């Protein structure tokens, strides 16, 4: 069939079946629908980026808060240790003072 000459009827059919121009609106509509389909994808990325940013801020804030609490706890602990040391030192000084006073009295 591929090597056969077209007869009059086939030639007429071929002529009748020439491509028709697409409507002028076709390209515009395709491009509009294509842009609409791509928009939600960019929105998804923007939402994901915003969510990640919020999570990062909240995570940073939480970490900062925990760090502050740990620093406060360590400060409190250091203060308690200093107070204990001062108490021990005061107690020792009192004992020395008492012994010295007793020694002085014995010497007199």
């Amino acid at each position, binding site marked *: *069939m591929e090597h056969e000459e077209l007869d*009059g009827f086939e030639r*007429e059919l071929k002529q*009748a*079946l020439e491509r*028709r121009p*697409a409507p002028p609106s076709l390209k515009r509509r395709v491009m509009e*629908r294509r842009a609409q389909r791509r928009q939600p994808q960019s929105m998804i990325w923007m939402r994901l980026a915003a969510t990640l940013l919020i999570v990062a801020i909240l995570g940073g804030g939480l970490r900062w808060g925990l760090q502050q609490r740990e620093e406060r706890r360590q400060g409190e602990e250091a203060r308690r240790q200093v107070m204990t040391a001062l108490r021990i030192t005061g107690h020792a000084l009192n004992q020395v003072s008492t012994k010295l006073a007793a020694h002085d009295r014995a010497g007199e």
Partner: protein
Amino acid sequence: MALDWQPDFERLLDEHQSMVFSLALRMTGDRGLAEEIAQDVFLELDGHMGRMKSPEHARFWLRQVAMSRSTDALRRRKVRGMDLWVELEDGHAARAEERPSPVGARLEHLLTTLPETQRAALILRYQEDMLPDEIAAALDAPVATVKSHLQRGLKLLRAKATNHLREFIRGA
């Protein structure tokens, strides 16, 4: 050349919109439906741009998908081509400069009355100037089947034309 080829969606749209629209129009006989099908085909192409290997591959893909989507649309609507063609002529008429000759219009009309498989083969053969093996690849059918569709379709169309276009046959 094909190795260097980068598919450009807008360029493919410009080059092939007439082909895709005409295939859908000849298969469905409905300008509105054909435009919808053509839009869907190009949007599908947009999703497959990365897979297009060459201009020939893109053209083959567009033909194949246009025919397939047109067939799907016809099955969904369950409307015979003849009825659709009446709608085309009555309601969605082409612009004056696009209208074929009266004989051509009658042949297009008669084509829509053929069975779908024969119509598809004839459209690809005479609109797209494709060979039977190319048509077979596009329609995913054996070459022998396509040749049979072409022969039977042409014979049926000729018989219908003989009845409807006696003036044309006498003049030929």
